[in-house]
């Protein structure tokens, strides 16, 4: 008699045995986690949700002072403040998703040690919670764009703006992919967490689109370092994003295709590694 077992627990798991079906079954949990993040994020703070706004505005002001003022490498022909608002917002989403995803096993070992649910729910929570925050900050950017339209009479938005969801999608894939890879390693080698916590924020200084546009950035760099800018998938993404909203940057499908290609490879790799780690990480974390 053929018996039907619907849960089978065994030591090894196929490389591609990724249970997306059960992730889908647990979609209500994903919603609850995102809801939890949202309602508890600004509890116990005085300024509350204002923090969503304060952070990018101050970052923009400081960047404008340092890069535009002191270093004098700000983009020409567009309002500097707008430029230094848009790039860092997108970068911040990438950085938050990357660092938080990479800490997912360590931060949640309490829950993971007591109950089973598809572990992939947690990185997805990080991704979507972050997206909410990003959406709020995008509103500030749009408000700033509108402000400059009325004060200077020029609208900085470009026609390619319609493609901006594609950029966001690639950033999400890339950040989650990197995060998943590192998360698997941090369960054993805790040093990595420190490296990520201070290293990822530093990466933005070698990413085009933060300090200045891609074109200016590549020209300023010593020839030896140019490949770092060229093969940095985030560079194209931020530069395109800046172009769409601020008009300073570039947009071409080839570069986006390159970034998307890297992002997909990284994500697949990340999911495979994460999937292999989740089954036993409680023994080593």
């Amino acid at each position: 008699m053929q018996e039907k077992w619907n849960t089978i627990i065994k030591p090894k798991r196929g490389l591609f045995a990724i249970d997306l079906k059960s992730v889908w079954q647990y979609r209500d949990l994903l919603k609850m986690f995102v809801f939890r993040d949202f309602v508890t994020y600004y509890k116990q703070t005085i300024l509350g949700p204002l923090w969503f706004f304060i952070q990018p505005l101050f970052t923009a002001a400081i960047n404008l002072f340092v890069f535009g003022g002191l270093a004098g490498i700000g983009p020409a022909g567009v309002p500097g403040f707008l430029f230094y608002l848009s790039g860092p917002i997108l970068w911040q989403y990438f950085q938050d998703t990357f660092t938080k995803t990479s800490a997912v096993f360590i931060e949640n070992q309490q829950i993971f040690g007591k109950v089973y649910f598809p572990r992939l729910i947690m990185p997805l929570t990080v991704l979507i919670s972050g997206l909410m925050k990003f959406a709020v900050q995008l509103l500030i950017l749009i408000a700033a764009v509108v402000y400059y339209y009325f004060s200077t009479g020029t609208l900085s938005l470009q026609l390619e703006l319609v493609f901006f969801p594609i950029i966001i999608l690639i950033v999400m894939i890339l950040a989650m992919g990197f995060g998943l890879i590192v998360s698997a390693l941090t369960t054993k080698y805790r040093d990595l967490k420190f490296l990520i916590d201070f290293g990822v924020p530093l990466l933005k200084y070698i990413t085009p689109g933060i300090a200045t546009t891609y074109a200016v950035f590549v020209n300023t760099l010593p020839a030896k370092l140019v490949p770092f800018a060229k093969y940095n998938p985030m560079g194209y993404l931020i530069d395109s994003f800046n172009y769409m909203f601020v008009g300073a940057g570039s947009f071409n499908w080839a570069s986006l295709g390159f970034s998307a290609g890297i992002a997909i490879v990284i994500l697949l790799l990340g999911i495979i590694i994460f999937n292999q780690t989740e089954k036993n990480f409680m023994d080593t974390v």
Partner: protein
Amino acid sequence: MSKNTVIKIENVSKMYDLGLVGTGTLSKDLNRTWAKLRGKPDPYATLAELNVRSEKSKSNTVWALQDINFEVKQGEVLGIIGKNGAGKSTLLKILSRITTPTTGIIKMKGRVGSLLEVGTGMHPEMTARQNVFLNGAIMGMTRVEIKRKLDEIVDFAGIGKYIDTPIKRFSSGMKVRLGFAVAAFLEPEILIVDEVLAVGDAEFQKKAIGKMQDVSKGKGRTVLFVSHNMASVKKLCSNGIVLENGKVGFTGEISNTINYYISNKTINNKFNSDNRQVKNNDVKITNVKIKNSNNESIDKILSGEKIIIEIVLNKAINENFDIGFGFYNPEEIPQFHCSTETKRIELNNRKQIYQATINKWPLATGKYYLNIYVRTKTTLLDYIKEAIWIYSEKGDFYNTGVLPSWSNGFYIDYDWE
């Protein structure tokens, strides 16, 4: 009709690395990968030993579970018992998919719900209602399901009017009740429960155990229950399994299982502090002896005998304090209790050795153990469970040369007219 097997556990073993995980794991990992590449078995697996905690281990790996095989039928309530470190928790973790076995396979039929903790993932800032949805979702319920049962859950937890209060304002008891209430309405086909019932007040425990009985009896669900509490295991379970050092020692009908567990319990007729409950206090009980009236240590008492319990502390205590001890039978049922506070005796005489005299040992034939504590009015200084065991035999309790007719229970003095 024979019932379906719903859980099948085949040759399950689990190996753990001992010591500090994280140091030297890189070289170990490389060694393992190298062995794997050459098609050799894990070089550390062969060194692994059985998990006997009392012996100092020679290798760095240990088998927490080894070759576990058993099946569970539908509707069965299986009690898993065993000493601390026998592998109960590891088995539970594997069954609830927290971790995977090193070898072997487990097959299960139906939705599995595991309850290793109540209220997992609840957030203090969120209201009770929000937490019910969150906790329910963590345990695999859908939103619709939870919505349908919300009223029942709130009712069961008895938190009616606090439903929209953040649970950080709740007492710990209320939180536990809320957590258990969500779990109670989980309705999986297979429920795996750890000793979570140990928390919460007595009334609620009763309610919780009742609920679990309903679940298994009324709806034909399968329950795996791990507990130290023989009374609740006996009450709840139909069958049992004893784990000993990572292996299955016994399986069978629950009362046989408990008997096996009790009769195979290691009995220390000398003082043993393995079950010390208070860690790192500088006042410690360093010895407990049971002596006869000639001041000689004994490991066997006859009922009616005069005995002396001698307690030695590592240092004198400078404030008022109390000492107390209780005797229990192997099923962990309390027999009697003696303490300085009930006798209104104040101890502050800076001695290190204290003696309690029991003029007529009242218990009948059997094995008994003693739990002992030392405390001041405010703090528990030391508390040791199963500090010493004693074997009792029927003796000449009435001093008549006639042995009492019963061998069970206890003896009392009485008069006839």
